[in-house]
């Protein structure tokens, strides 16, 4: 997982560099074939052999192009799995590294689909993309429906658009509460907070105590910058307040008093238990503060767990995770992240592609990816596998949280607009706009986008 942390930094850095010129838009196409060779040598070693392919049949003559992860262990694993599939079925699989930056990947997929291109067969898709690209993706329900039934229900619901299973979950991610075990103990708190009130109280106590040591110490850090990450964070707050999940079908439900209370609380956090700068934080900003020993609590994705426990980390062995807090009477909520796999409708080898996706999403491969790369399986049975539980010890601790999907499935092609309207409105509320007004505006913008 630590590789994905590194990828985050590189990603934002590349995004920044790309912003300089239009090259960001073009590089999506340009890096396709050549990139494979010039980065191949740097890939980390895959420690276990990939599991054999079972029941996929022979696919000699099929030529598949797979847009796979581009850096670190993820790229190495994807390559190893593709080779194994090719050996066991006779199909040729070309692994193309997708652009590192998700927005760039998104833009190149748009162009490929616009051109109805057969140049790609299997695509790795961010979890919010199946809804957007659904018209261009193959329905996998008939071939892989049985396998899908073994995966997390929330993930399958996310990948089912208007009754069609257009993608299969590859790995999952979710928000968790990180807390400092040593500091909780030092200030006499026996267990991590379960409600937001408890979190606020603990953070306040620890912060005022620790400020004597370091003036920059923060009670609670999270992702408050106006970007997709804020959509993930705010969805958790609002859902854990009983304020719904932005849309119900295609109808916005966001303009409600419970959501307003959630936003009011987080506005209050800014400048009290959270640094004012938190409204500019992404994942890595929050992690740097927490891992530097300068925060008591953090909301982040699971990648920060492995990163925090690396040798030389200041908080190695001094932190643990728990489900995110909630309001009394409501559920702890975790926004669903991760990536899925889809097949292009314009593929010339749909059968081989389906067999390949079936292999990549099988319990054996999920287990392999968890053990080798730390990727979180989307099959509950694999999550409970003793070897997997040893590698991903936090899974068991956050099992109580309800997984909430972003409304990408309902909003379809308009998801980005909905998300931008949502996080920009939330950002305004964090900066002091009256929450009710901000929600009203979000509601109005979403309605305009979806009409």
């Amino acid at each position, binding site marked *: 997982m630590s590789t994905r942390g590194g990828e985050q930094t590189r990603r934002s*850095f590349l995004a*920044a*560099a*790309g*912003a*300089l010129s239009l090259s960001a*838009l073009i590089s999506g196409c340009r890096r396709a074939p050549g990139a494979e060779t010039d980065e191949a040598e740097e890939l980390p070693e895959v420690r276990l052999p990939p599991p054999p392919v079972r029941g996929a049949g022979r696919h000699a003559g099929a030529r598949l192009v797979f847009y796979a992860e581009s850096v670190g262990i993820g790229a190495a694993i994807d390559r190893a799995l593709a080779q194994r599939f090719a050996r066991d079925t006779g199909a040729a699989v070309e692994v193309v590294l997708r652009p590192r930056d998700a*927005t760039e990947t998104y*833009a190149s997929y*748009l*162009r490929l*689909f*616009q051109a109805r291109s057969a140049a790609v067969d299997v695509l790795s898709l961010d979890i919010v993309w199946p809804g*957007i*690209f659904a*018209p*261009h993706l193959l329905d996998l329900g008939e071939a892989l429906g049985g396998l899908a039934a073994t995966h997390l229900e929330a993930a399958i619901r996310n990948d089912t658009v208007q009754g069609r299973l257009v993608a299969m979950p590859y790995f999952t991610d979710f928000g968790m509460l990180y807390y400092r075990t040593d500091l909780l103990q030092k200030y006499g708190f026996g267990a991590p907070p379960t409600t937001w009130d408890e979190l606020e109280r603990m953070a306040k106590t620890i912060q005022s105590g620790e400020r004597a040591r370091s*003036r*920059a110490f*923060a009670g609670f850090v999270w992702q408050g*910058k*106006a*970007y997709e990450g804020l959509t993930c964070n705010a969805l958790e707050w609002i859902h854990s307040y009983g304020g719904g999940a932005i849309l119900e079908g295609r109808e916005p439900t966001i303009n409600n008093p419970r959501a307003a209370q959630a936003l009011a609380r987080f506005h209050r956090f800014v400048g009290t238990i959270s*640094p*004012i*700068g*938190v*409204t*500019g934080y992404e994942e890595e900003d929050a992690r*740097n*503060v927490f891992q*530097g020993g*300068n925060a008591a609590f953090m909301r982040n994705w699971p990648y920060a767990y492995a990163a925090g426990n690396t040798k030389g980390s200041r908080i190695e062995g001094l932190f643990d995770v728990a489900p995110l807090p909630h309001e009394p009477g409501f559920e702890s909520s975790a926004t669903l992240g991760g990536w899925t796999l889809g097949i292009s409708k314009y593929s010339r080898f749909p059968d081989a592609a389906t067999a390949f996706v079936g292999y990549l999403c099988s319990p054996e491969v999920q287990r392999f990816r968890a053990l080798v790369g730390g990727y979180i399986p989307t099959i509950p049975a694999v999550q409970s596998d003793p070897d997997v539980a040893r590698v991903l010890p936090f899974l068991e601790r956050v099992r109580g949280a309800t997984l909430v999907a972003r409304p990408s499935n309902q909003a379809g*092609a308009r998801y*980005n*607009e909905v998300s*931008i309207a949502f*996080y*920009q*409105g939330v*950002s*305004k509320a964090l*900066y002091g706009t009256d929450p009710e007004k901000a929600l009203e505006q979000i509601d109005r913008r979403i309605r305009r986008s979806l009409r």
Partner: protein
Amino acid sequence: MSTTASGAEKQGEVTGIRARRRARVAWAFLSPALVVTAFVALYPLCDTLYLSLTNTRLGSEEPPRFVGLSNYAELVHDGFFLDALLLTVFFAVITVMLELALGLGIALLLDARFKGRSAVRAAMLVPWAIPTAVSTQMWKWMYNDVYGVFNDVLVNRLGLVSEPIAFTADPRTSLAAAVLVDVWKTTPFVALLLLAGLQLIPRELYEAARVDGATRLQAFTQITLPLLRPALLVALVFRTLDALRVFDVFYVMFGSRPDMQTLATYAHEILVSISDVGYGSAVSTAIFLVIAVFIVIYVALFRRREA
């Protein structure tokens, strides 16, 4: 007499033919450049104009339709666009003023002869040479409220403030933070442009002024400024153009923060994130028009003064 007259006539005819031939040759030499310009500038511009009159969306199932001026009608009621317009113009006015004032000061200093002058001139260009996205990221780290160097100095070393300041997140300091980066980066460029202009001014003029008993201030306002006008116009036009199109500083520093969108970041959001090519093209065209207005004003102002 008549012979000379006809000779002159003939001569005139010859020069006429020569001029026409020269013009033809000139056009022949110019045509490749014109073709290239038409391809890389005119064609995209016209295409953007055309797209702005349609409802084109990338990834949409339905074919694009011609919608007339409705995108522009939406634009004038779009609060986000108007906010971005206001912020961009405000940013452009402030940064260009600061850069011209500072640039002129630095140019005057560098115009004097001193040891190591060329080394100083070269060193000055360093901020200009670093890609903006990279230097903005660097400044963002320096501005950081937890580990940034500014807060370390302000809070821990000097003790001027008790709480760290979140320069880029606090709405009261956000714009100033962006202005500072832009001024830091482009002042050297303005200074060098003006320095080149200064060095074209003949030294004898200053000597004559001194002989006539003019003060240094008089020499500056009567000789330096008027003769520097062409260089100032070039610097002004270049900087205003760039400032009105500002993208990287805001994109890297503020992302999609709604109160910190410039025209260019707003166009990027609509074109790339939302893939609404029709409306995004209308925003791009609007940027072009705003810049055109500024240029027309500048040129008119400087013409009138000269006449």
